[in-house]
């Protein structure tokens, strides 16, 4: 770890979790270096976070070391639209399915992974569902019918106001009497 910290700007988040930010150009080479020159030989998770207000995605490659007691998260900001990232299937075979999932859920392309077919959804026509601009409630309302009598997501502020006013007036009436 000390050795790696000299090479890269690694931030320590918790005693066992480290983070490293790299640019999209150096992403593959960094992962390659870590895979073959360091202890971090396992890719255990591939995450993606949508920062829509900053117009970028944040990819996170969670690497775990040989002893399984330390995690290093290699993070990389990428654009939100028409972005292709180099696939890491050659380094980590398990990345194949993780990339397939992110491709479906966010629309991120992975160059070099030719198995980017359907993962969980079948015949999905809409936007990739995990993007922030995809509104799941609007999709539900346009595609599915609810049974009558189900009231969800109501704005209860008005009701609370009325109830509070009623309680207040009742108290006042009591105090007056």
């Amino acid at each position: 770890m000390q050795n790696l910290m000299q090479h890269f700007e690694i931030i320590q988040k918790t005693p066992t979790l480290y983070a490293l930010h790299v640019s999209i150009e150096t992403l593959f080479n960094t992962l390659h270096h870590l895979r073959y020159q360091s202890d971090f030989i396992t890719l255990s998770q591939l995450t993606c976070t949508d920062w829509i207000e900053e117009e970028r995605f944040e990819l996170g490659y969670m690497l775990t070391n040989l002893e399984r007691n330390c995690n290093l998260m290699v993070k990389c900001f990428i654009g939100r639209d028409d972005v292709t990232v180099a696939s890491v299937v050659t380094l980590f075979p398990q990345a194949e399915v993780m990339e397939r999932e992110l491709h479906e859920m966010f629309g991120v392309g992975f160059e070099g992974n030719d198995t980017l077919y359907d993962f969980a959804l079948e015949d999905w026509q809409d936007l990739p569902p995990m993007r922030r601009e995809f509104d799941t409630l609007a999709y539900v309302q346009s595609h599915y019918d609810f049974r009558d009598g189900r009231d969800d997501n109501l704005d209860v502020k008005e009701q609370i106001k009325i109830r509070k006013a009623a309680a207040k007036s009742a108290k006042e009436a009591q105090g007056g009497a």
Partner: protein
Amino acid sequence: MEEGFNAYRQSLESEEQSIKSTQSVVEQAIAWFRAHSMFVLAYGTGCGAIEMPPTFTSRYDIERLGVVGVATPRQADILIVSGYCSPKTLKRVIRSYEQMSDPKYIIGLGSCTINGGMYWDSYNTIKKLDDFLPVDMYVNGCMPRPEALIEGFVKLQEKIRLNSSEAGYIKYRDNYAHYRANQERLFGAQVAPSYEENFAGMN
């Protein structure tokens, strides 16, 4: 007038008598046999499937009521849709249901089959199962206890014995166009082949 369990039993018996007077002895016998040999298709479509092993094994032992699990739809009488259905599952559920032979019944297990339950704002679960398939009995809860499932089976037995003409498979046959339209609306071009021609030759 008695109270409690006895009153309930008496009201059931009197109701049963009035209905039985409209059925012949053979019809009564057939309905009794049907109600006490319910074969359940082993298809755990959702999380409700986790309460089915306790129901079917030694503690709750639903085999007392003649309920047994079978592996293939061709032998099954009951399809338990155990929870939320994504469109992808629903396609397979419909196909499994259509392969089952009449008489066949559906139990919707869990609140999410009734009105979406916890997943009311999820883009990938259907909210009303009876739009697509004729549900005979709903068991609510998240998740329903084995006792609730047993209660559902008992009520279904009652329904089979007393109101056999209201069974779901008859409804499905008579209103196939309605169910088919809903299925087509949800699945679009990916809908399964029509089942209608199989109705030919039936009463």
